[in-house]
């Protein structure tokens, strides 16, 4: 294992230290591993909190700031944060208008955010949660833990964040976040496995000439393992899997092509060109697009495609000012 770290045991603490050093506008609570906006909370604004295992950066701490999250809880690598972290974040950013938890659908995240919500409510804070479960690679959601939460999370954080910034109440922000979550779909592909710092070797074996179609962001297996193929054919598989799962016709679409951490931007743009062409061929209008590393899986090579069936309101909120470490425009 070759990694730019001091030691596997300190990688998360070291990274939080770096976040604090690089972004003076953020507040980092090292004991609770919570990154929040440094500015005083805006009284009466619904607060948005997300969190999850580390290793998916910039998700979630990279999306803390004006127009997106109020706080992010960082768990150990690929491990959900704990209820006490979430409770600390809740107490830090609650501004009297309630708190929305944005939760990716993994057993650990769901259980810990549930416990946190119970604790926060016992302390008199109103909490609502939105679950993101957008990974179309999981076909059998009855006999599994359900669809995994992946790229749509970023879009929920942006759009619901803008709505909260406008001063909407918790019910309205929750309803909007739910609508975004329900209308987003994603699918990923891995060219290589990720290597966890604490483990030191790849999480799964993927032969040099094979790819995992439908991989999860922790290296969960996808739909199938197939021979390596040109980007255009991979794009075709991702696009058709997503389009056959949800109706994207006749609506503006927000597309996000995210790298998984180990793939250069030139390749991401190359495959995005193919994705855009395929969508155009099928009469889908991409109104906004985002290409880059937004939800990653450590050093995994590959990408994930997320499409959101948007509407005018979502587009307006998407365009609203945002000022975070990883997403910044109009502010």
């Amino acid at each position: 294992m070759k990694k730019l770290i001091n030691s596997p045991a300190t990688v998360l603490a070291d990274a939080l230290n770096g976040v604090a050093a690089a972004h003076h506008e953020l507040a980092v609570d090292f004991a609770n591993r919570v990154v929040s906006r440094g500015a005083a909370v805006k009284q009466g604004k619904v607060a948005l909190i997300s969190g999850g295992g580390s290793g998916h950066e910039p998700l979630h701490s990279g999306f803390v700031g004006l127009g997106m999250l109020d706080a992010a809880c960082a768990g150990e690598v690929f491990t959900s944060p704990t209820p006490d972290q979430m409770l600390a974040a809740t107490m830090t950013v609650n501004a009297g208008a309630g708190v929305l938890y944005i939760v990716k659908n993994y057993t650990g995240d769901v259980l810990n955010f549930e416990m946190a919500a119970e604790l926060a409510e016992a302390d008199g804070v109103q909490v609502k949660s939105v679950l993101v479960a957008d990974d179309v690679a999981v076909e059998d959601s009855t006999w599994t833990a359900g669809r995994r939460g992946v790229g749509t999370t970023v879009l929920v954080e942006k759009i619901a964040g803008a709505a909260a910034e406008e001063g909407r109440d918790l019910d309205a922000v929750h309803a909007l976040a739910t609508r975004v979550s329900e209308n987003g779909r994603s699918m990923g592909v891995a060219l290589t496995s990720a290597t966890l710092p604490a483990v030191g070797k790849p999480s799964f074996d993927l032969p040099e000439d094979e790819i995992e179609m439908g991989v999860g962001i922790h290296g969960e297996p996808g739909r199938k393992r197939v021979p390596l193929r040109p980007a255009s054919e991979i794009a075709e598989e991702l696009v058709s899997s997503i389009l056959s799962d949800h109706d994207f016709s006749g609506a503006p679409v927000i597309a996000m092509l995210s790298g998984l951490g180990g793939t250069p931007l030139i390749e991401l743009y190359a495959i995005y060109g193919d994705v855009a062409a395929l969508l155009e061929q099928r009469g889908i209008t991409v109104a906004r697009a985002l290409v880059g590393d937004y939800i990653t899986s450590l050093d995994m090579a590959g990408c994930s495609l997320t499409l959101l069936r948007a509407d005018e309101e979502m587009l307006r909120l998407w365009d609203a000012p945002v000022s975070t470490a990883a997403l910044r425009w109009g502010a």
Partner: protein
Amino acid sequence: MLTLEDSRLTVDDLIAWLVRFDEQIVEHAERLTELDSAIGDADHGTNMARGTAAVRLRLTEARPDDAGAVLKSCGMTLVSTVGGASGSLYGTLFLEMAKRVGAASELDTTVFADAFRAGVAGVVARGRAEPGDKTMIDALQPTVDALSTAAAGGVPLTKSLQAAAAAAAAGRDATIPLVARRGRASYLGDRSADHLDPGATSAALLVQSLADSHAERVR
């Protein structure tokens, strides 16, 4: 000769159990992570070891006064240090047991069996897993049944705990052919069969630790 201690679990017995659990987790951490890398995300050993070490430290630094306080401290510590699903599920197991035993200073077989049943019911409610889903429940439910049978039959505590450990181990081994329906392993579908479940494996270590630590203390 059967001593008086063989009918009850004291505060010190419970602490000895959790210290032994930490030793067992440390000893088997690598194996747990290996099992988890086959069907999960390769962190079960690391995460559990972080949690049991914290439990051990907390209980040995400040000895709680009653059984409920030991179990509650253990539960809270696991929830806040393990993370993931395991932290909240193991935490719930101990927190529910703590609620059931309250401020008792000693637990006899019947009370312990009852508390363990409440703890496992809490885990089932939180995790929404049933026996046969290839989870820790597959080791914990047989433990509950063995303890209840032993309590009803008036079996001495040491023997009851040994029977519970054997039941947990059998439940653990029975996860091998199962197809996972909950947790991260469920994404593998049929590919999750022919693997031992890491959660059931650590749960069996928990029960074995109690049987072993108690047997040593009454010897």
